[in-house]
């Protein structure tokens, strides 16, 4: 009996250790990539110069490159990656389906449409655009939910409706881009697949606080999310206020998605891939919100570095994550077909 008990405890400890180790390593990886983002570029500055610039010292040339160009880009990469990763993982866990990611079922596109319309067509500032993005994201989430309710709610139906809405919204984005005044290629690419090009410090404050506040809330709701994952009946039986919890989780996730989208555009597949990768690395028992956020940050930073420096042409980050994500999407769709829609 005592020996058997030891076995149970050891299992708990091992899984917890694995979770902590993986989360820590992901954080270290994010830090290393961040340094690389500050280091790489047309002119490479030494670490001591980078540190001095970040501390506020004015150095000819370096200050502009690092503070104005590289640092906002790095911060946007981290924050958008965290936001997409945490929000995607929340949706996937809550709906118990890896396909139920906001960038597959149209929520990201909804936010993107609003951002394009307000920034490129109406030319308002980013705060207004962010608010519009949030509202549009929530609206699309409600729309998908209402349309997939019908006689009986099914996850498979919701995903197909979401994919349809996504296609429709992407068409609207293309249309708006063609109509907009500044239909230059970088802007177009940002709103179609996401990019970190030309992000300025002043655009970052909203995203920064959104990630801390709503990401933090999602992290705290991790245990509730894990109970919700057991299905409606088990969750109620365990004393969870399911409706309240769901609304809160969706709100947090949509805020994260929408604000990140209004800054970087919909960086393809980061929300979709982060959760499954984090779960695979950190194990499934403990809430994967935090590792999923860190995985998202790693993906965005890494993809941006690859996009900027690996080829002769510079590609925006979303093109690289898109290439990584598409095969996994196809794999899941094939699996969904085989298992009769359950995925």
């Amino acid at each position, binding site marked *: 009996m005592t020996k*058997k008990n030891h076995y149970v*405890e050891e299992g708990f400890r091992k899984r917890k250790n694995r979770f902590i180790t993986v989360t820590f390593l992901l954080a270290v990886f994010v830090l290393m990539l961040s340094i690389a983002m500050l280091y790489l570029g047309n002119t490479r500055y030494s670490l001591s110069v980078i540190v001095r610039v970040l501390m506020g010292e004015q150095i000819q040339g370096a200050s502009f490159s690092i503070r104005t160009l590289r640092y906002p880009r790095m911060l946007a990469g981290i924050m958008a990656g965290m936001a997409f990763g945490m929000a995607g993982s929340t949706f996937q866990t809550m709906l118990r389906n890896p396909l139920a990611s906001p960038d597959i079922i149209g929520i990201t596109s909804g936010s993107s449409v609003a951002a394009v319309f307000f920034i490129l067509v109406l030319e308002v500032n980013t705060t207004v655009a962010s608010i519009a993005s949030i509202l549009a994201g929530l609206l699309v989430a409600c729309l998908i939910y209402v349309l997939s309710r019908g006689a009986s709610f099914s996850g498979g139906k919701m995903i197909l409706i979401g994919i349809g809405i996504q296609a429709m919204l992407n068409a609207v984005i293309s249309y708006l881009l063609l109509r907009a005044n500044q239909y230059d290629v970088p802007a177009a690419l940002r709103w179609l697949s996401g990019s970190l090009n030309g992000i300025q410090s002043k655009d970052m404050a909203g995203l920064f606080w959104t990630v801390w506040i709503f990401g933090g809330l999602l992290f*705290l709701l991790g245990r509730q999310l894990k109970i919700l994952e057991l*299905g*409606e009946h088990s969750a109620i039986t*365990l004393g969870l206020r399911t409706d309240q919890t769901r609304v809160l989780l969706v709100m947090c996730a949509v805020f994260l998605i929408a604000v990140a989208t209004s800054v970087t555009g919909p960086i393809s597949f980061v929300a979709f891939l982060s959760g499954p990768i984090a779960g695979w690395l950190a194990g499934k028992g403990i809430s994967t919100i935090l590792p999923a956020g860190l995985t998202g940050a790693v993906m965005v930073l890494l993809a941006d570095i690859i996009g900027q420096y690996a080829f002769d042409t510079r590609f925006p980050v979303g093109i690289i994550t898109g290439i990584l994500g598409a095969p996994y999407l196809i794999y899941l769709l094939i699996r969904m077909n085989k298992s009769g829609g359950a995925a």
Partner: protein
Amino acid sequence: MKQTPYFTASSLVAGYDKKIIVNNIDIIIPKNKISVIIGANACGKSTLLKTMARLIKPVSGEVILDGKQISEIAPKQLARKLGLLPQSPVVPEGITVSDLVSRGRFPYQSFLKGMGKKDYEAVKEALDIMGITELANRSVDELSGGQRQRVWIAMALAQQTDILLLDEPTTFLDITYQVEILDLLTDLNQKRGTTIVMVLHDINLSARYADYIFAVKKGELISQGTPFEVITEEQMKQVFELDCAVIKDPVSGSPFIVPKGRHYVMVNESIEINE
């Protein structure tokens, strides 16, 4: 001496949308006993159980636990007293047995504080009672149906409730596992005094394991009592519209139904049937 009512429903009406499925049921669940609800398919027995477990909001009437309406008890408080094993619970992909069982401790955890010493003890005890300690670190996906069902019951046990409701806990299981699960539930009732209420399909197993049987037909409670009082030829005709003979279970002595039907293969009486 009559006990004060403990877990009851009165004038309970419940259903989905506008369809009434449970029609004006009054029921008093005997404390520390095993009660079984039987009835034909779609008679409302499962809806009755779900309404008593607060999964369905009643249209009218009330469910009372310890003198309080369950809708007025705080969800987590209620979850420490009343547990339910749903008919087909959802297994999160890749979760290990002990992680799943530990989720039964949710009602005891506050917003910020995670698993404590007491929680780990409860999980270990639940695994031990269900005889699945060896499976603790295995993934639930890999287990057989019977093993999985034991994991779910272990989760409900970790919840440490006085009352455990089970919606057809033996469905889809081989007969061996059906008997095994019912034996384990009886152990639990005898050791901890847990009040068990379950919906079962098999009348003969119900008769064998139940202290008390409730028979439901078309949303109404039409018969209740000990197995000997409920499992009779007349009552079975009434509840299931089935002609049957009731004999004595050769193992337990409880009533045992043998359906009549219109066809059967005649066995030549001169051939000895192997015992």
